[in-house]
C-alpha cells in the first residue's frame, strides 16, 4: 500500500491553508495601513456558519503562531457557548495554549466587548463583527456607501444622529456607536457597548476586526485617534447603571443586569475574568479614559 504522508495530518496548522492565511494577512496589513478602511477579503469556508464568528476566527487563525496564548470572550464571558466552542476549535487546530487570564493572552478574540483590563502592546485584540458598514442604516446600496466613504461624505450619518436626538432627546445608539478613525473614515466598532468605545482611542494594542459574512477586514492600529461622533452641544456618553456590582461593590466596570426570582434586579460585572480577579483581590490595571474618570466610586 502506498503511504501518503501528505494526508497523515488531517488539517493544516490553524485549519486554513497557508496561501489563504497569507492572503488574509496581506489584507490585514492593508487594513492597518489605512485605519478604519474596510478591506474586502476571501472569507474562506469554515466549519461554522458565516455570521457565527467566522470573521474573527479568520483573523485569529491567520495570525496565530505556535507560541501564542489564546483567550476568547463572548459578551465579556469566557464561558459562554460561542466562546467555548471557538476556543476548543482553535486549541485543537493549533495546539496553542489557551487561557482565561487577560494579562497572559497574546491574542484575544472577542464578541461585542473589550476587556476591562488594559491591553498591552504585545497583545492583539480581534473582534467578530456582524455588520462592518456603519452607513448601512442610512444607505442600503453598497456601491453608494463605498462612494460615501471614498469622498468622506458622511452628512447622512450625522443627520441620522440629529434625527435620533430630535425624536428621542438623545442619541439612541446603544452598541456599535459610530466612530471616526484617524480623522478620516467612519467605522462601526462592532457592537461593543458605548462603554468600550473610548478604549479604542490611542490604545497600546492592535485592534483587528473581521466580518466573515460581509467579507470585510479593518483595523485600528495602536495609538490611533478614535473619536465617537458627537455634535458640539450633544455629546457622546457612556452607559450609566446607578447601582454598583452586587458581588464586588465596584462601579467603574460595565455591568450586567440580572433579574432575581423575587423580581428585583441587581448588577454584576460583565467581564468574567475581571470579576474573578476583583473577587480574589488581585491587582488589576484598568483602561483609563476621561469618561471612566468621571464616575464617582
Amino acid at each position, binding site marked *: 500500500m502506498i503511504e501518503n504522508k501528505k494526508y497523515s495530518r488531517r488539517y493544516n496548522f490553524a485549519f486554513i491553508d497557508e496561501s489563504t492565511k497569507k492572503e488574509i494577512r496581506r489584507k490585514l496589513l492593508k487594513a492597518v495601513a489605512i485605519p478604519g478602511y474596510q478591506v474586502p477579503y476571501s472569507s474562506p469556508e469554515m466549519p461554522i456558519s458565516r455570521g457565527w464568528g467566522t470573521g474573527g476566527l479568520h483573523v485569529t487563525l491567520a495570525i496565530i503562531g505556535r507560541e501564542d496564548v489564546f483567550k476568547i470572550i463572548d459578551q465579556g464571558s469566557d464561558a459562554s457557548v460561542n466562546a467555548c466552542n471557538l476556543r476548543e476549535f482553535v486549541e485543537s487546530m493549533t495546539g496553542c495554549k489557551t487561557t482565561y487570564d487577560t494579562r497572559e493572552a497574546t491574542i484575544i478574540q472577542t464578541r461585542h466587548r473589550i476587556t476591562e483590563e488594559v491591553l498591552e502592546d504585545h497583545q492583539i485584540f480581534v473582534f467578530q463583527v456582524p455588520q462592518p458598514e456603519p452607513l448601512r442604516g442610512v444607505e442600503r446600496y453598497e456601491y453608494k456607501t463605498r462612494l460615501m466613504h471614498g469622498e468622506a461624505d458622511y452628512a*447622512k450619518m*450625522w*443627520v441620522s444622529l*440629529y*434625527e435620533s436626538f*430630535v425624536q428621542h432627546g438623545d442619541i439612541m445608539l446603544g452598541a456599535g456607536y459610530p466612530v471616526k478613525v484617524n480623522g478620516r473614515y467612519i467605522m462601526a466598532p462592532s457592537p461593543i457597548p458605548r462603554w468600550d468605545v473610548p478604549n479604542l482611542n490611542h490604545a497600546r494594542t492592535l485592534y483587528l476586526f473581521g466580518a466573515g459574512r460581509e467579507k470585510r477586514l479593518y483595523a485600528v492600529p495602536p495609538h490611533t485617534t478614535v473619536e465617537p461622533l458627537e*455634535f458640539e452641544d450633544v455629546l457622546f456618553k457612556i452607559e450609566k447603571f446607578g447601582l454598583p456590582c452586587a458581588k464586588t461593590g465596584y462601579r467603574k466596570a460595565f455591568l450586567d443586569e440580572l433579574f432575581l426570582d423575587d423580581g428585583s434586579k441587581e448588577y454584576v460585572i460583565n467581564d468574567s475574568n475581571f470579576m474573578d480577579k476583583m473577587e480574589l483581590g488581585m491587582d488589576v490595571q484598568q483602561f483609563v479614559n476621561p469618561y471612566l474618570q468621571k464616575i464617582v466610586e
Partner: protein
Amino acid sequence: MSTLLEVRNLTKIYGEPGEHTLERTGPRAGTNICPDTEAIVACANVSFDLYPGEVLGIVGESGSGKSTVVKLLYFDMERTLGSAWLKPYLDGHSDILDASGQQKRYIRNYLMGMVYQNPRDGLNFRFTSGGNIAEKLIMAGHMHVGKIRERASFLLDRTEVPVRRMDDLPSSFSGGMQQRVQIAKAIANNPPLLFLDEVTTGLDVSVQARVLDLIRELQQELGIAMIVVSHDLSVIRMLTDRTLVMKHGRIVESGLTDQILQDPQHAYTQLLVSSLL
C-alpha cells in the same frame, strides 16, 4: 458686470454618437434621435451666461432638454461635452464639470441649490423636514444642533411652513408644503445660484401662486441668481428676466422675457406663445 455662470457647448448624448449625429438632429431635422446610430441627443451646444442676481428662464416642451441642462449643471448627470465656469468657484478659472467628486459636492453644498419638480428627488423622506435642512447645513460644516435647529426654524418660517411641523416627516405634508420645505433646504446655505426645475408643476393654482410669490420674494430679498426651468409660460413671465427657448435639445431663441413673449421670432416660440391659454 462679471458673469456668475458661463456655460459653453453643453452637450449630453445617450448612446454612441456618429460622425453626423449633431448635424442630423435638432430643430431643423425635427428629431433628437440620430438616424444613423440611434443615439439620443438630450441637449447640444447649449451656451449662455448668467449674471449675479439674474433670473434666467428655460422654456420648451417635454423632451426638449431643458431639465437636462440644469441636471448637468447640478452634477446629477455626467455631461458628454462642454464646460461651465462658476465665478465663486476658484474665481471662475476652473471648469466645474471637470471637478472631482469631492469638489463637486463642495460646489453643490456651498454654491448651489436645487428645487426639483418632485419633492421626493430633493428631500429624503426618511428624515424629518428639519433633518432635511440639517443635512444641507451639516454638509456645510455646521455641527451645533441648537444652531442648526435655529436656522432650520428660521428657514421654515420664511418659506411659510409651520415651524411646529419641523420634526415631522415630509410624507405627512401636502404637496405645496413639501415644495416649500425643498425651497427652504435649497437656500439653507445662502447659495449664489439656485436651480428651479418645474417647481410648480403638479400643484393646484392657488398653491402655485403662493410658491411663485415666495420664490420672487426670496429672489428680491437675497439676490440669488436663478435658472428657472418650466414648460409653463406664465411661470416664466412671472419670474424671469431673460429666457432661452429650447427645442429638440437646442436653444432656438433667446432674449429678454418680455420681448420673447411679445414678439416671438422663431416659429416654435410663436406656437408656444399663441397656445398660451
